[in-house]
């Protein structure tokens, strides 16, 4: 198992003192992602998907429960994981630093590791179906789909073992969505990384995921193989979701 979440609960407190609101964004969530596997996570808005991804990335410390990456608990310092896990996030508009050229953005994870970029950047851009010439452009000169491709290139440039896609295609046009989903599938076949693929769109999840987990109000209500899930959802809520599709 590359990633294991064991009985994880995350509680947020909000509001001023004396009338704090406690909100369980995750409730006793247990998940695991196997080597080379793609786990799809679906659920309505506010169900705790992003929180789960942040826990998986080590950006959010669980209130209780354990997280293991590659069999070991998260190290104290994030840097030790540098380059081994990456993410592609939701907003194509904000996924790239508007003040950095595309090439610089893609090279950044390497720079953090102190590795020379070399041809890796152009190679990676070509891998995600972009011309190498794009490296010199600024993000605002790209379309949303192109930007998400650059994000994917940036995530892959260190050849990580695990990538989180949090609503990576949700903001894109249907026609472009498919391009990106195909790209993810192809790259996974080539690089063999494991993935946590988060989306509220069942269609997209079905298209890329090996297994599916359904979240609702911070809880995992069902986990199943993609095939089984679509033919025979166990939970009432899963059935509702499928109907709306």
């Amino acid at each position: 198992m590359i990633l294991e979440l064991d009985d994880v609960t995350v509680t947020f407190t909000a509001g001023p003192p004396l009338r704090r609101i406690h909100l369980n964004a995750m409730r006793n969530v247990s998940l695991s992602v196997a080597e080379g596997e793609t786990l799809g996570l679906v659920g309505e808005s506010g169900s705790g998907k992003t929180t789960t991804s942040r826990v998986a990335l080590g950006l959010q410390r669980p209130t209780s429960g354990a997280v293991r990456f590659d069999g070991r608990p998260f190290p104290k310092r994030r840097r030790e994981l540098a380059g081994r896990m990456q993410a592609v996030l939701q907003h194509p508009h904000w996924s790239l630093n508007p003040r950095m050229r595309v090439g610089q953005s893609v090279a950044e994870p390497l720079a953090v590791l102190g590795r020379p970029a070399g041809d890796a950047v152009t190679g990676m851009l070509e891998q995600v179906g972009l011309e190498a010439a794009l490296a010199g452009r600024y993000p605002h000169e790209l379309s949303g789909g192109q930007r998400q491709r650059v994000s994917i290139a940036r995530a892959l440039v260190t050849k990580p073992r695990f990538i989180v896609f949090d609503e990576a295609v949700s903001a894109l046009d249907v026609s472009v969505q498919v391009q990106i989903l195909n790209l993810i599938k192809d790259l996974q076949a080539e690089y063999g990384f494991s993935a946590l693929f988060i989306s509220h769109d069942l269609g997209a999840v079905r298209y890329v995921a090996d297994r599916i987990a359904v979240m609702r109000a911070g809880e995992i209500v069902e986990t199943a193989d993609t095939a089984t899930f679509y033919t025979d959802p166990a939970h009432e809520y899963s059935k509702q979701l499928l109907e709306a599709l």
Partner: protein
Amino acid sequence: MRLLMWWSGRALSSAATLLGVSVLIFAAVRLMPGGFAETVLGPFATPEQKAELATRYGLDQPVFLQYGHWLAAVTGGDFGVSMISRQPVGTELLARLPVTAELTVLAVAASVLAGVPLGVLTAVRTRPARNKGGAGGGTVGRLLSGLGVSVPEFVLGSLVVFVFSRYALGLEVGSWVPIGQDPVANLAAMILPAAVLSIFSISVTARTTRDAVMGVLVEPYVTAAVGRGESPWFIVRHHILRNAATPVVTLLGTITAYLLGGTLIVEHVFNLPGVGSYIVQAVGRRDYAVVQAGVLLAAGVFIVMNVLIDLLVGVLDPRLGVLAGRRS
């Protein structure tokens, strides 16, 4: 209950700010170079006289003790005694407050009565500047409102004093009388200083209002109202004014602080016996108690003002402020 909670929370944080302010003021006043003794007693004073003065005002004690005494006295409503006039500072401040308050109120009123309609009008009337990406608005209008915020009081004040003392234009400079004595003459004497004081704030209010209204104009609910066939005036009245009010009301807090500062110069230029000229003179003479009290008063008014504004904003915009968070 929620309101009570809000108030206590807000009061606590305001008190903390005020405490910070008081420390800063106290430290600043103590750090001033130039001896109060030389200033107060004049060059001919003997060392014994100076020492006696220091003892009288507790200036020979350790600074933190002095601060403690001062703070304790201030919380008890005692602002100390002016070293110059030997009158209680509180009494003198109270006597001078009406002048400053009147000036400020007149200027704030002018800002609201002139600035807000001006801002709304220019925002609603603005034709978008094509192909420029700017917010539009006529060059002349922008220049004029820009000019309003670019003429400092001391320039305008000097000019007004000159023009109105040279040429009989109906309003007079330098004929101030207390409001209790002759309200009409008092008002007549206050018009010019208040006008000088308010030029800036009117312009700023107009600009802020314009920005705020233009921000509201592109909100979907305004488009929805236009789509329902409502008239512009109806939309302005029912939807825009209230929604644009938040930044404008917030601005009024800042403006008040600004105006309190502005009165300093205006009172100086027009020789009005307000708190501002009191502070200027006191700083000049190292009249510690007065400086401390005066500045603390100004900061205190501003802080209280902001609490009130927060409350008002909360009432105006239910998404913010006290009552927010009550979800059904």
